[in-house]
């Protein structure tokens, strides 16, 4: 039995934060931000918007694109690093806010930028086993609410934007053919090396912080903000994504030069250039929208997939590869065929 991505959707906050605006806050220059990331602007949520609000809109967009209704979804998988609350997860909140959605299972995946691949893998298992016919997957972030906007964190905070992307996964090829977006998921490869867990982290609130998972000491130390060993992230990201691309291509007897389109996590344009160089991949075969939306973590690859559909870059017969790397470290690739 095969599994298909039958439609995609997106939701982006209205507020555009240009490099000029954030550069003033971070005490850097707009040119420095663009040169070091490729980002020109990003979207930030308003104070009354939470990650779930964006996710609901993205899910509605994906349902509308497929001509489906929320009561047809059998399972909901949500990916985020900036949930509405510490508990419960964002998926149950989206299940509640998504009008018409039945009392279906709703689960969170907290694998950051690789969430799309984990949700693929789970959704694929569900539809292939017959446990679900239609699975709704989304990645959503309202991470601007947790950025350290001091100069010392400029390298990290300049990157992030808010947004949500969604997709519907099914085993029904007829449903997929009607929707205008039909990607058959042929293989998924995911790896993890937790020895790098501290190289990209938000440590508090967390139970490894002594007696309390969040206290004034942790806040004073900035443990509630993200921290990154940027050099290590880039070194490992290029290696792990390129190795994943090579391995998944080899085990499916597909030459890398036959990959028609790569849809990567949108981390940093310079990192994507390094990845292209490592894989001898022409840059025009890579979907990039981080210049407009920044790094939206769990939502980024979902939004890149949505961009590819929106720009009509997916053509029947194409071989498509999705690549991602994120905190953990965890990384992976998915190989798809455009039907």
């Amino acid at each position: 039995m095969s599994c298909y991505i039958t439609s995609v959707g997106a939701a982006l906050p209205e507020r555009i934060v240009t490099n000029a605006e954030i550069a003033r806050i971070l005490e850097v220059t707009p040119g420095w931000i663009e040169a070091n990331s490729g980002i020109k602007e990003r979207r930030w949520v308003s104070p009354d918007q939470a990650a779930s609000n964006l996710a609901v809109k993205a899910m509605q967009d994906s349902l509308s694109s497929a001509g489906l209704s929320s009561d047809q979804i059998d399972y909901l998988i949500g990916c985020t690093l900036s949930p509405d609350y510490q508990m419960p997860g964002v998926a149950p909140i989206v299940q509640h806010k998504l009008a018409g959605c039945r009392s279906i299972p709703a689960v969170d995946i907290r694998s950051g930028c690789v969430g799309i691949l984990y949700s693929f893998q789970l959704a694929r298992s569900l539809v292939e086993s017959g446990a679900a016919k239609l699975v709704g997957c989304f990645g959503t972030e309202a991470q601007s609410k947790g950025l350290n906007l001091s100069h010392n964190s400029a390298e990290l905070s300049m990157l992030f934007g808010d947004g949500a992307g969604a997709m519907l996964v099914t085993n029904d090829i007829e449903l997929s053919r009607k929707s205008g977006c039909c990607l058959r998921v042929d293989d998924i490869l995911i790896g993890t090396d937790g020895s790098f867990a501290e190289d990209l982290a938000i440590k508090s609130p967390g139970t490894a912080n002594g007696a309390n998972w969040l206290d004034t000491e942790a806040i004073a130390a900035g443990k509630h903000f993200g921290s990154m060993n940027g050099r290590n992230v880039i070194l490992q990201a290029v290696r792990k994504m390129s190795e994943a691309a090579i391995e998944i291509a080899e085990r499916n007897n597909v030459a890398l030069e036959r990959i028609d389109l790569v849809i990567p996590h949108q981390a940093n344009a310079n990192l994507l250039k390094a990845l292209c160089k490592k894989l001898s991949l022409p840059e025009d075969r890579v979907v990039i929208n981080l210049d407009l939306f920044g790094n939206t973590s769990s939502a980024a690859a979902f939004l890149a997939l949505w961009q590819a559909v929106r720009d009509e870059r997916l053509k029947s017969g194409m071989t498509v590869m999705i690549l991602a790397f994120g905190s953990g470290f965890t990384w992976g690739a998915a190989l798809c065929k455009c039907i």
Partner: protein
Amino acid sequence: MLPESVMSFLSKAAKDNRTSLPDANSSLFLAGVLDSFSLVDFVSVIENECGIKVSDSDLRPENFDTINKVETYIQRSAVHQ
């Protein structure tokens, strides 16, 4: 001594960044010779030119921070591989 091809990569990186190579114990990053992205290329050059594979656990910037550290790493890897 580092292989000539590895040294010439560093010399070119220094020239491209309008700086000069630091002494063997000083940081290539602080000197502006290497940055996060050129480090990716530097590791590839080391692997290709020295015939070694930098293991995942060794793939850390601190192992490639100075000319001496790179030299030590290459010698150690050549023995183990």
